[in-house]
């Protein structure tokens, strides 16, 4: 059999794998993407789970898709269409709500209703966060230099970064240090008094992480939200028409337009290695494909210990991967609805239904939700980030009907007694019941319910322990430590074998940065 030869094979058609494929194909490399599932996208997929209703099954908003990728791959011409997701409301237990709207004056007036002091503080806080995000943003676009290394590329990168941080000035540098070390609750306590505001803001610091708002290190992730705002012009934060799967399809079209080949239903069993050099991949079907470059878009555990024989790898690397924290902590509930939920705090149809609805009434509420998970149970009253995609893109559901996406935290991967069908449904019930406290008609609208636990996320997408970021975005596994020290630049000890998933710098969200940086490193190494 004379199998087709490729310059590069990418294992896993998640969005990072597709981005890497597009960049490699654009540089003239004969590139093949192999995806186990019948559709590309990984955790960024849209599926018609219930007839006529399209769910962004896992990932549900575009977070930080890099503007340079949008431009380099000309994604708008391939179908990128990010629609505005303009508001957030937090229903309160007293029947009131806290709103954040598209218009800054409306937002300020709304906040002043709860705390005039916070309304002023929010403006100054926003400015500081802008500066912090500007400080961190260059890092997203660079291969992380290793401070322990004396290699010229590392020194050059560190020098650039050092100069960058010096230019911040002491005030901003100190603020950045606090952000890097504090808990989001403590950090926000320094600024604000209104509990629901702090809770809602802190929620972005705990998403996808097995931490509570009072856990140190959770403040840093707050920044990610503001990084989206710097790129505001690109509407990098919003809702892709057709759901997140349409983003994956867009990137796939760009990759194909550059000549990349994409095969679905093609599960890679293992990566083939001769000596310390990669030679290709073996599929579950028995087929073998050869290529001098193989890139894994899978998470670090799968990349190093499933696709490879761990015995062929240096012990510190294997140990680092073993200790790398996944600890999936979130679940997802997708609902097909016959009509719109009626929120007690804002009855009837209104602009709040076109934005996010955050179930985060107080810091204590969130911390208690975490407490349940700490001891191996799902939160009885979880944090939820709810959106109604059909209000933003009516084509997600039949006219007049709706889909609701509920991101839920916490649902620990290691549940006491393990996950099973009964526990999954109990979790789904807890979610719907908690949300129905704020929108009593919700239960009567449900036509179909899809409940996804971390166990389901792992089973369907392959993401280890169901962690949506291919590993926690915790400081000890970010930047030059992601996924493990010394192997944070997309390389592996196997020559020609590379990593490009969110388990590498800079991490998760539909950012594409890992895929792009990996591809650029590969191209640089070849030249």
């Amino acid at each position, binding site marked *: 059999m004379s199998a087709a030869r490729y310059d590069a094979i990418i294992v896993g058609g998640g969005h990072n794998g597709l981005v890497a494929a597009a960049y490699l194909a654009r540089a003239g490399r004969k590139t093949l993407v192999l995806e186990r599932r019948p559709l590309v996208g990984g955790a960024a997929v849209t599926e018609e789970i219930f007839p006529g209703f399209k769910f962004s099954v896992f990932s549900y908003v575009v977070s930080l898709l890099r503007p340079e990728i949008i*431009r380099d791959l000309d994604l708008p*011409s391939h179908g990128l*269409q990010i629609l*505005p997701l*303009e508001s957030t409301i937090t229903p309160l237990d007293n029947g009131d709500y806290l709103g954040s709207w598209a218009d800054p004056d409306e937002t300020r007036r709304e906040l002043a209703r709860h705390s005039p002091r916070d309304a002023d503080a929010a403006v100054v806080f926003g400015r500081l966060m802008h500066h912090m995000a500007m400080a961190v943003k260059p890092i997203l676009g660079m291969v992380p230099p290793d401070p322990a290394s004396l290699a010229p590329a590392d020194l050059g990168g560190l020098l650039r970064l050092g100069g960058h941080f010096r230019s911040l000035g002491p005030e901003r540098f100190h603020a950045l240090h606090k952000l890097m070390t504090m808990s989001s609750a403590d950090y926000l306590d320094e600024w604000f008094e209104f509990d629901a505001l702090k809770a809602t803001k802190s929620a972005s610091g705990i998403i996808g992480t097995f931490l509570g708002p009072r856990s140190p290190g959770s403040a840093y992730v707050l920044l990610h939200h503001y990084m989206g705002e*710097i790129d505001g*012009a690109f509407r990098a934060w919003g809702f892709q028409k057709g759901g997140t799967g349409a983003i994956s399809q867009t990137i796939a079209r760009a990759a194909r337009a550059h000549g990349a080949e994409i095969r679905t239903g093609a599960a890679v069993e293992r990566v083939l290695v001769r000596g310390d050099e990669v030679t290709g991949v073996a599929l579950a079907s028995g087929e073998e494909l050869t290529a001098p470059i193989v890139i894994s878009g899978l998470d670090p555990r799968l990349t190093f210990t499933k696709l490879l024989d761990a015995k062929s790898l240096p012990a510190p690397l294997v140990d680092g991967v073993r200790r790398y924290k996944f600890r999936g902590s979130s679940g997802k509930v997708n609902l097909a609805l016959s009509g719109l939920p009626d929120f007690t705090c804002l009855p009837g149809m209104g602009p709040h239904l076109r934005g996010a609805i955050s179930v985060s009434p107080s810091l204590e509420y969130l911390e208690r939700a975490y407490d349940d998970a700490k001891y191996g149970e799902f939160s009885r009253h979880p944090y939820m980030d709810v959106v109604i995609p059909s209000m933003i*893109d009516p*084509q997600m559901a039949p*006219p007049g009907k709706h889909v609701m996406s509920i991101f839920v935290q916490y649902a620990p991967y290691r549940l006491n007694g393990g996950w099973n069908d009964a526990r999954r449904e109990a979790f789904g019930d807890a979610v719907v019941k908690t949300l129905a406290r704020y929108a009593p008609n919700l239960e009567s609208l449900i036509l179909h319910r899809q409940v996804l636990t971390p166990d389901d996320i792992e089973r369907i997408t392959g993401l280890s322990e169901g962690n949506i970021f291919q590993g926690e975005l915790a400081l000890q596994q970010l930047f030059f430590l992601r996924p493990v020290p010394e192997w944070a630049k997309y390389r592996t000890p196997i020559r020609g074998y590379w990593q490009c998933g969110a388990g590498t710098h800079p991490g998760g969200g539909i950012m594409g940065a890992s895929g792009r940086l990996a591809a650029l490193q590969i191209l640089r190494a070849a030249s």
Partner: protein
Amino acid sequence: MLKTTPFHPRTSALVRAQTWRRWAGYQMASAYDPHPDREYAAIRSAAALMDASPLYKYRIEGPDALRLLDRTITRDMTKLAVGQVYYTPWCDAAGKVIDDGTVTRVGERAYRFTSADSSLRWLHLNAHRLDVMIEDVSESLAALSLQGPLSRDILSAAAARDLAPLKYFRMIEGAIRGIPVSISRTGYTGDLGFEIWVDAARAVDLWDALIEVGTPWGLTPAGVWALDLARIEAGLIMMDVDYFSAHHALIEARKSSPFEINLGWAVSATKGPFNGRRALAAERPRGPAWGFVGLEVEWGSFERLFAAHGLPPQIPNVAWRASAPVYREGAQIGYATSGCWSPLLKKSLALAHLRAPHFAPGTHVELEVTVEHRRERADTVVRKLPFFDPERKKA
């Protein structure tokens, strides 16, 4: 006092931030939300409903109606079938554009003529000795523009008939909930879309019917700001913004021929006598002195201008209408007249007049931009119009 359109009772109740602007002497919503993001998104993603009533509208009827129109416009009227619509400019005797608009053949000898500016005098001048009736229906005929990828689904449901057979730039008569309307597959967004013409007395009923039917499809009322973004992406010119009417220009240099504003395609080379024929016939072989083209600002260059001040690029969410000089190799070779950040294409775009020979697509020029109070020049590439041209527009 500005006038209000027949839809005012409905539109005025929706304008949350009292953002009004004028259009042909009418008070029009700039946006219903404080900013146009969502209204614009509706045009490109679902459907938007826009009041187009300030257009000037004329009913032209009689044995010589065709002769009058053929004498007036630059396109060949003899080829316009019943139920067909032309978009066309019309010129003065020197071949300079007076206005642009549409001509619809609503019957064997009956036409609807729309224009940006009042055209009554010009039509009467051209009707000298012709057996034709010209009726100004600007106020008695209201117009709604229903634009966007789902516009056909909504209108088919509202009109209780499949509108798929209605082709691009064709029109039909029909009814929506018993309200007699005329529906044309036209618009000012470069997207799939329709314009619906209705007796002003039934305007509010029509609005209510469309909103009721369209809401489940995401139908969103949209104002002029959203429309302005869409029309720039579609490369559609606006009189007295992108070019001066020959009837308004105070100096000759401000006038443009159709060839100079990207409407050369609408000038018939074969038809009989019409206003400007001789001048245009002379201009055609020698080529226009100016080209009207798209400009696309190169992001890297734009970003660097802001980064020099420690700023991320600052981008307005509404279109600009101003004259911005365009340079090539240090010399000014033209000017941009309007532009916007395209939320869809993720590009900074402008419409510009460039002198020959600098308007070939791909030419690298520089657009003047103001960054942190300083005049700077951003690297810019000449593009063919339209910037955005989806298949669904004509499909």
